[in-house]
């Protein structure tokens, strides 16, 4: 199989996984162990960093809904957004029951997909 990710060239995918995915994640765990007991986790910098991290993951999630890979990309965008919004509404209404939210989204998505042929 040829290299599917041009942005990795000349990096190997495995090296990229170690350098750009594993290391930037593990380093926080190591710093946490080393600093444990010496830092206030309620400080303003943590509040800001957590907000940025949350927004970043949310931005990725939005892109996944707009441009998902594979066959689900053929479904209408409105169906995907509607299924996600309904799932989140059910999650909130059910007292934050994750299973209900996920099942609602999946049921609407697959039901809608079948109905639209």
């Amino acid at each position: 199989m040829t290299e599917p990710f041009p942005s990795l060239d000349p990096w190997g995918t495995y090296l990229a996984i170690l350098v750009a995915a594993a290391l930037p994640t593990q380093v926080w765990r190591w710093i946490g162990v080393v600093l444990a007991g010496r830092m206030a986790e309620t400080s303003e910098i943590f509040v800001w960093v957590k907000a940025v991290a949350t927004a970043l993951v949310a931005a990725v999630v939005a892109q996944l809904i707009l441009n998902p890979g594979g066959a689900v990309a053929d479904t209408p965008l409105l169906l995907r957004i509607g299924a996600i919004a309904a799932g989140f509404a059910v999650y909130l209404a059910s007292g934050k029951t994750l299973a209900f939210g996920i099942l609602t989204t999946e049921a609407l998505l697959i039901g809608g997909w079948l109905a639209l042929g």
Partner: protein
Amino acid sequence: MASHPHAADTPAPAAATAAGWFGRGVLNVFSLPALVLFSAQVGFAALAREAGFTVGETMAIALFVYALPAQVVFIGFLAAGQSLPAIALAVALSSVRFLPMVLAWAPVVRPERGGRIGMLFASWFVAVTSWVFAMSHLPNYPRAARLPFFVGFGMGLAVVSTAVVGISHVLLERLPPLVSGGLVMLTPIYFICALWGASRGDADRLALMLGLFAGPAAAALVPGVDLLAAGLVAGTAAYIIGRVLKARRAAGEAAQ
């Protein structure tokens, strides 16, 4: 304080060797929170497969990163053709929450003396599922039991997750598009709900909502660095609005 009545689901017998505690930790992998994690990892495998990652690469990401948001950010950024430094920065930002999480976790899990190397190794397995489990159950266990128990539980979760990722990557090929497509959409709804559930204030919830809109907006305005820009702008805006709301609430209480 070896055994509290509260820990009915995880009995903590008085005496066992470190290996015994490790084994007990492994056995706890068969639990409901672990099941939720495994199904989310199936969604990740579907995502990685659709993005063009091989089964080996997908398993390596699951094992060596072992943080679902970071895994998804890495896949999403790479598939969107962003540069490697931008990817590393985005992954680092999405994983920064491990710092406060580990800071809270370490005093619970660490042994009486020493154990620095063991703690550095154990921290690999700190993720949302194991963290919640450790923080709620381990205080009921004798201190000598905690680190081996956590490593058994955390390693068990990571190994089974990686196996689940590998198996589903292979099986997805034989699934009808309806099923694999449904699994791909598991990740967005799981994350929206999990991020909301993990929010600790207005800033976090605003960041989630603003980020959902900022992502596509930035993709149109500043392609190439769009996800990073969206995170920084939406996150900072959420932080500022959150601070204003907090100050206003405090002022309102003071006025009464």
